């Protein structure tokens, strides 16, 4: 039987439930290359509108950089479009090896293995290196892809309170009998923009003979003085056993990810990680682009320095205007609104003012913690940020939230 009315009804009902709960996600169609200035069709069929993009992971403004595009073109010409094979059959080119070596050098690790995405890296790594005799102890706010990877792994699962190293220490002591203890955290947390205390975590891992895993997807390329990542910021380069990261954000933003770290762990991923074994790797055109990105970042810190300056300017402007921000110094700057509907209304009004910034609410963030997550880029100029600030102030004034406390906002709009 094909897709009967009864079966279709089951799925229609689920989609209706998502819609009724206000959780239906609609895509906005961008008719230009990814950049600070984009042309957006939203809702579908509406005329195109020029807006400033304040919600891309394009932290270094490299997604459409002419040198990266040129390198990708050259890679397409010299190495072709696709590989039509997984890595271990006939899907490995010289440039895949070259990229793995360059990433290793850039991150200051021992070895690197590419994955089709960082989601795949996180889905495959735990099962490849851990067994039922081991334990994974993760921060409670790690990214969804890590949670999926942990679910696929037979090792025991436990958690510690977000960024709470005292609680982590209790857990390390509790699991002292396990063969391997793997502590798991994001480097920069994607929803709050705060940074893991990797220096303290490395010290604890040494004390309890534990290993440390860091997903640095929102850090690689720009956090730390030379943009190596959270481990550079915390002074622990060479001390992280497993780093996973993405090429889909700051490093050109196309796709692909990797596991980088201890030689033996990377080798086990090459032998066992299922997304690596059963899926094509990154296409040659993307590999060529990322190689150029790493060259650009190794030659100069100009782009990450500009990002740092832009971020400080943006945070200061929003704070002075009277918005409540999540504390931090990363380019993820959450503007707290607490109420889910308010976050959607503010996002809609900002769009009308030519600013593209998305509202996040439960279940993406905790109940009562709705927000607009803004993300700053080295591709922004001060005039972009000034225009965005004007729009935020106008919309903030309309909703009467400027200079208000959390309590005042939740009294007006509900938690």
């Amino acid at each position, binding site marked *: 039987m094909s897709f009967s009315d009864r079966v279709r009804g089951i799925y229609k009902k689920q989609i209706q439930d998502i819609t009724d709960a206000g959780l239906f996600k609609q895509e906005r169609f961008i008719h230009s290359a990814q950049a600070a200035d984009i042309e957006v069709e939203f809702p579908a069929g509406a005329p195109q509108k020029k807006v400033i993009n304040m919600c891309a992971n394009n932290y270094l403004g490299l997604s459409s950089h002419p040198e990266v595009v040129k390198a990708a073109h050259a890679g397409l010409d010299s190495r072709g479009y696709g590989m039509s094979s997984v890595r271990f059959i006939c899907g490995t080119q010289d440039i895949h090896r070259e990229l793995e070596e360059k990433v290793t050098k850039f991150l200051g690790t021992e070895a690197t293995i590419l994955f089709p995405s960082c989601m795949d890296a996180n889905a495959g790594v735990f099962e490849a290196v851990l067994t039922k005799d081991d334990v994974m102890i*993760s921060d*409670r706010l790690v990214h969804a892809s890590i*949670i999926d990877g*942990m679910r696929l792994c037979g090792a*025991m*699962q*436990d*958690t510690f*309170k977000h960024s709470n190293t005292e609680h982590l220490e209790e*857990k390390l002591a*509790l*699991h002292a009998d396990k063969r391997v203890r793997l502590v798991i955290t994001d480097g920069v947390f994607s929803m709050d923009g705060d940074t893991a205390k990797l220096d303290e975590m490395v010290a604890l891992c040494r004390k309890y003979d534990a290993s440390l895993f860091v997903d640095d997807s929102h850090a690689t390329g720009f956090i730390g003085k030379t943009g190596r990542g959270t481990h550079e910021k915390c002074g622990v380069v060479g001390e992280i056993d497993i780093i996973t990261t993405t090429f889909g954000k700051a490093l050109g933003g196309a796709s692909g990810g990797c596991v980088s770290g201890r030689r033996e762990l990377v080798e086990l991923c090459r032998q066992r990680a299922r997304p690596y074994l059963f899926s094509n790797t990154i296409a040659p055109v993307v590999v060529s682009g990322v190689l150029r990105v790493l060259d650009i970042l190794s030659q100069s810190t100009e782009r990450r320095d500009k990002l740092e300056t832009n971020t400080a300017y943006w945070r200061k402007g929003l704070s002075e205007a009277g918005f409540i921000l999540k504390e931090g110094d990363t380019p993820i700057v959450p503007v707290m609104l607490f109420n889910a509907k308010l976050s959607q209304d503010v996002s809609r009004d900002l769009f009308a003012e030519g600013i593209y910034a998305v509202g996040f609410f439960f279940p993406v963030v905790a109940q009562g913690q709705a927000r607009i997550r803004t993300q700053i880029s080295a591709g922004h100029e001060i005039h972009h940020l000034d225009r965005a600030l004007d729009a935020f102030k106008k919309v903030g004034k309309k909703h009467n939230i400027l200079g208000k406390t959390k309590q005042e906002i939740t009294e007006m709009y509900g938690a």
Partner: protein
Amino acid sequence: MDEMQKVILEYVKNEYLEDDDDDLNPDTPLISSGIVDSFSMVSLKRFLENKYKISIPDDKATPQAFDSVNKIIALVKQFAK
């Protein structure tokens, strides 16, 4: 409230609640309400096993059996000598 209730309630509060003001009683749903996620159940099981010198088989350590302090106590008593 007996001693076991006090000990387990205190552990659950310290372990899972982020805010000291949150209220919790022996019948508060823990897992179905989202206070304890399924990943975090493991430390609760290990705590109970260490504290009461028992072994809870994995197939008995279900989300339903861990869904309130009173249900946990019933489980512990089932395996205590």
